[in-house]
């Protein structure tokens, strides 16, 4: 597959999209871990929801 004289523009475009999509995925995954960790810490310190159910349980 030859990308012709503008190969650098094509490759840069695809790499940039890959980088931004990966950044979004990692950012969302890390945010999930951060929120569930904070909820577990709060529950461990005796702060629970009025319903009594675990706030970190997403199932």
């Amino acid at each position, binding site marked *: 597959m030859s990308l012709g004289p503008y190969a650098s*523009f094509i490759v840069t475009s695809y790499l940039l999209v890959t980088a931004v999509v990966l950044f979004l995925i990692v950012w969302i995954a890390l945010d999930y871990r951060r929120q569930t960790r904070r909820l577990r810490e709060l529950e461990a310190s005796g*702060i629970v929801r009025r319903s009594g159910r675990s706030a970190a349980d997403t199932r």
Partner: protein
Amino acid sequence: MTLTTTLTDLANPTRFLSLTARVLPWLTAATAILLAIGLYQSALAPDDYQQGATVKIMFIHVPNAWLSMFVWSVMSVAALGTLVWRHPLADVAAKAAAPIGAAFTFLALVTGSLWGRPMWGTYWEWDARLTSVLILFLMYLGLMALWRAVEDPSRAARAAAVLTLVGAINLPIIKFSVDWWNTLHQPASVFRMGGPTLDRSFLIPLLVMAVAFSLLFVTLHLAAMRNEILRRRVRSLQMMQASRQAA
């Protein structure tokens, strides 16, 4: 089950989280498979007789450009949900969608520039289409700043909903800018009266990539909504903790 019943059921964040936990693995797999097919088809697509291999940039630029507007449309429906129906998850949906929409808009602008340099001879032109998409990007950033600036989530939700609906005026301007004004950007070539002007060898990879990116948005959006619900639970537990300590 009617749509109203479904929406009422999903108004319960716990039920929504349970649904998300079940659906996300399937959505992730479907997105990955479709993206792989789309990228394979894009790689095999022939060169355009005018653009050469640069046409391959279209397979990522166009889906990102469509999604930049689609995400704002989703946020506008959510804004109505916040202001009119006071749906508990409406603001969660809007807030979670904004950074994803901003990312798609950023990618549409940059990949468009990278296509424009070899094809138009310039990275940027202040024409109606490019400028209105840049305004959309700035509006996404403004909304994200607003959510961060206002401490009380319900006040932030109402202000953001109003701003989102005002910003929706930009969507038809973006869509029809190429018809209303004389722009460097070409007119619509897929969704137009009389059918697409693209050859099947370009149209099929483009549509596959568009569906793949749409699935990517749905997957990321559901995951980000789940995070936002958990963030609000953290906030309410922290407030309970603070009030106990004060008592």
